[in-house]
């Protein structure tokens, strides 16, 4: 969805529905009430197909406040072709999800838990042939094409190719071979010579450099919502996350909460921060971005959210500051 108007300035508001988490903060902030939130729970359960928000083109004043209040990259506002996020006089979110490549062990845990699939871990493992050192050689003169070694090889490193009925070709894939010597032991013809430097000849000469794992973590900043899952799961503390809001969220423990039959809060949470344990709602604040979606969908008003601070800086306009500070208590 795009709203454009060309007056003295060219102003353009673009809604990127693929990034929108449906929190409705923009709708709360809009000074002209041009933004309406859709039915959050039916959308998240896939019962209706529509965008989370709808912007009324006639009401929208193209002020850009919604784009500044969105901490999840779902709204872009540009003046004369320049995004206001890069402009001097407009507010900026100081959000962050960064990885320290020196500490990172490239275990892929963060990639697995990321609720937005925003993390890609590209890792380059060391050259295997440098780490497994051994020798193997098959005497093709002695070999009788019995296929015993091929069947026994635990690494599927031996292949025998029949070239017609008369001849055959036996070969060892040294990238797969682990020099376990099984083939040597089973060969009825003693046609295989194999030796493992790791055991037969004492310690293998493997240098630490050869065993190094290299890699890179790629975070898709557009879809990352800085929820903190990666920081929490990282076993070596290599991730730093700065979330959009600070504060607290908790359930009020009302008896009316029908956990298992409702689970609306769990379904709408964009960060997978809500679980149901024995029918009781548990909100895991370490994974929560305090977006307030669950508060809006809970039919029993059983969830309380208190934002104490937001990481939005450079709010120059006083009227904007007044509206934006409604987000915090």
């Amino acid at each position, binding site marked *: 969805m795009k709203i454009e108007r060309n007056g003295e300035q060219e102003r353009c508001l673009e809604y990127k529905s693929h990034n929108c988490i449906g929190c409705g903060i923009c709708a709360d902030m809009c000074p002209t009430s041009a933004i309406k939130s859709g*039915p959050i729970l*039916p959308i998240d*359960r896939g019962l209706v197909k529509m965008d989370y928000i709808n912007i009324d083109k006639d009401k929208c004043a193209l002020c850009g406040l919604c784009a500044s209040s969105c901490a999840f990259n779902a709204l872009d506002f540009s003046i004369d072709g320049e995004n206001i996020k890069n402009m001097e006089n407009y507010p900026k979110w100081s959000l962050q999800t960064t990885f320290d490549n020196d500490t990172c062990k490239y275990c892929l845990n963060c990639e697995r838990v990321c609720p937005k699939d925003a993390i890609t871990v590209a890792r380059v493992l060391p050259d295997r042939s440098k780490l497994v050192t051994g020798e193997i050689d098959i005497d093709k003169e002695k070999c009788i094409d019995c296929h015993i070694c091929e069947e026994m090889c635990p690494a599927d490193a031996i292949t025998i190719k029949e070239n017609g009925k008369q001849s055959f070709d036996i070969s060892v894939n040294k990238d797969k071979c682990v020099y376990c010597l099984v083939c040597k032991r089973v060969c009825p013809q003693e046609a295989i010579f194999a030796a493992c430097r790791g055991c037969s000849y004492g310690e293998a000469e493997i240098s630490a450099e050869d065993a190094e794992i290299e890699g890179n973590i790629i975070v898709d900043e557009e879809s990352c919502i800085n929820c903190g899952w990666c920081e929490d799961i990282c076993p070596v503390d290599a991730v730093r996350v700065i979330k959009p809001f600070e504060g607290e969220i908790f359930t009020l423990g009302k008896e*009316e909460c029908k956990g298992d*039959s*409702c689970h609306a809060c769990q379904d709408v949470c964009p960060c997978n921060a809500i679980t149901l344990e024995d029918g009781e709602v548990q909100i895991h604040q370490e994974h929560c971005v305090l977006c307030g979606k669950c508060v809006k*969908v809970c*039919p029993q008003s059983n969830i309380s959210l208190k934002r104490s601070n937001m990481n939005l800086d450079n709010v120059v306009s006083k009227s904007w500051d007044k509206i934006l500070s409604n987000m915090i208590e």
Partner: protein
Amino acid sequence: MKMKSICLYKHIAYYDLNEVIFMPVIIDTEKCGKIENCPGEGLCIKICEKSALIEENGDVVLVPENCDDCDLCIQNCPNQAISKS
């Protein structure tokens, strides 16, 4: 006093006596209209995981004994046709 409790008992005949506090929802048939006219195409039926709301001849019908009182239907009805008694 005794009469009153008998009346109450009839009224809540669907329930176990221990669950007297259970109050099912009320569907305002005028506001609701037929499912074919519903902007959510019978959203309340789809959203209820307890099968307490079912379709019968194009109308939404409440099955009180299935209702778990979660209020999701009340909150999500596009016609605001469902309320608490």
